[in-house]
């Protein structure tokens, strides 16, 4: 079945440093989504990427979708303590009922030292 691998599992940075998490799928994805979960909270949608090679920015966050639509990355510039949390990528299936199944990566837990 489809697998979504995410690295690193953990990342600890000093406030102001940059952070990147990477997501790789075993199959081509029609699109990829990113979510953030604060400690003790629930996953919250950040963005969806659809097109091959797409790059989207949200303030200090930059999201990329690979040309082959099999990998994606989230980069945070100049991290702040408010960026603390677990970042998940998620990809849907490609056919039939599996479009109803969003498979999540294992997440990257980001901690920021003030």
């Amino acid at each position, binding site marked *: 079945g489809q697998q979504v691998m995410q690295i690193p599992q953990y990342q600890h940075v000093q406030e102001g440093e940059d952070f990147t998490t990477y997501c790789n799928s075993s199959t081509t994805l029609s699109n990829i989504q990113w979510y953030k979960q604060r400690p003790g909270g*629930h996953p*919250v949608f950040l963005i969806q990427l659809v097109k091959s090679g797409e790059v989207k920015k949200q303030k200090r966050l930059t999201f990329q979708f690979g040309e082959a639509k099999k990998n994606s990355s989230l980069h945070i510039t100049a991290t702040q303590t408010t960026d603390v949390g677990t970042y998940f990528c*998620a990809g849907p299936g490609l056919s039939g*009922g599996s*479009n*109803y199944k969003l498979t*999540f990566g294992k997440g990257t*837990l980001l901690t920021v030292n003030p």
Partner: protein
Amino acid sequence: DTAVSQTPKYLVTQMGNDKSIKCEQNLGHDTMYWYKQDSKKFLKIMFSYNNKELIINETVPNRFSPKSPDKAHLNLHINSLELGDSAVYFCASSRKPSGTKSTGELFFGEGSRLTVL
């Protein structure tokens, strides 16, 4: 107004008991889900329903029985609870998939933390 609400937020119970978690969404979505998040934060889909119809059942033990009385509600009943069932259970909803596209963003409830002793 909470978009996706689930109750209870916390459940502590003994092994062998039966418990239920309720979920309601007021977003007008057709599709609802149950996800299980274990202690390592891994989010795994359990069930997906579209307009009250079961679409995805991810080889979940049949002790878990979802029920969707209407498209705004998806409840989860668990029989004969085991230690390994301890986790946070998230309900979520989304638009119905369109063609080859996926559902779009998932809206998650705040989670129900189940502890089995």
